[in-house]
């Protein structure tokens, strides 16, 4: 009886300290399905993410702290930089794109995108980097990629630490 009580207390304490789901975002309506390969927190509850479809095209999705889309852009990029997101903050997203040549795209908070190029060459990330760099948490919570075991797509979930 005493052991059972301790066990129940332990389970109860786990429940007390579990994270809370704040929002989720999925691209399940996308006909090709999607898998998340990179998440970069903006530090304020939002994030930018890279989704790979079954046709191997990459899509950049920038979400605000409520999980609403600020910017979405399909890019050709996996061939020159596995780490497509360069920088993400509340005010700014910078990412690589392969359209029409390798270049850098800078997006403001309103979703307006501007292209950066260079003379006599093209811009890319560190091509030998096999795994994209990730930032999956901030002060108030964290992000996960949830896989549906019955489907090929994933869902991006925001949790608060409390």
């Amino acid at each position, binding site marked *: 009886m005493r052991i059972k009580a301790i066990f129940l207390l332990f389970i109860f304490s786990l429940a007390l300290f579990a994270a809370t789901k704040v929002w989720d975002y999925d691209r399940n309506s996308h006909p090709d399905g999607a898998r998340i390969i990179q998440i970069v927190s903006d530090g304020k509850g939002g994030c930018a993410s890279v989704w790979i479809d079954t046709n191997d095209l990459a899509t950049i999705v920038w979400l605000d702290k409520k999980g609403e889309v600020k910017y979405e852009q399909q890019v050709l990029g996996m061939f020159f930089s596995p780490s497509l997101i360069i920088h993400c903050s509340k005010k700014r997203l910078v990412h690589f794109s392969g359209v029409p040549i390798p270049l*850098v795209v800078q997006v403001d908070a309103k979703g307006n995108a501007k292209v950066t190029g*260079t003379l006599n060459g093209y811009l890319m990330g560190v091509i030998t980097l*096999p795994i994209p760099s990730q930032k999956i948490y901030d002060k108030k919570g964290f992000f996960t990629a949830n896989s549906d075991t019955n489907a090929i797509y994933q869902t991006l979930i925001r949790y608060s630490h409390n």
Partner: protein
Amino acid sequence: MFSAGLLCYSVIAATELWSYDGWEQIRQIVPDGKGGCAFVRVESNDVAEVVWLDKKGELVYKTDVNVTNNPSPINVKILFFKKKSLFISDVKNGENVVIEIDDNGQETTTQSAGNNVGGPWLMGYTANELSDKRGFFTSKINLIDSRQEIVRFSYK
């Protein structure tokens, strides 16, 4: 579809501030948080260097990798910056070591009792950071000879 996407863009964002020779290939970039960075550059004959540049793109420090004692440049990893020091892991005389380099280029080597101190085994070159508060770094592939440069951009 991609053409339509490109039309949504307008040119030109960001400003190129400086660039530095990245040899045949740049393998790791880690910013110092103040506009400078350290990076690993490699030649095809397995020669590699760790290069530390300040916010003006001027050389603070560089070290050759001793290929005799260090059979593959992949052993060299930039770990992190702390205040005015750069920390890298390397293999010296067959032993894994961590080297702290101050902004005068002075090296201090740390060895463990088991002679095997460094970053996590799976770290590889995954500790890449390409941005800081004021700008970002990319590698640039030159169209003529396909050699690389590291390029610093400001966001504005």
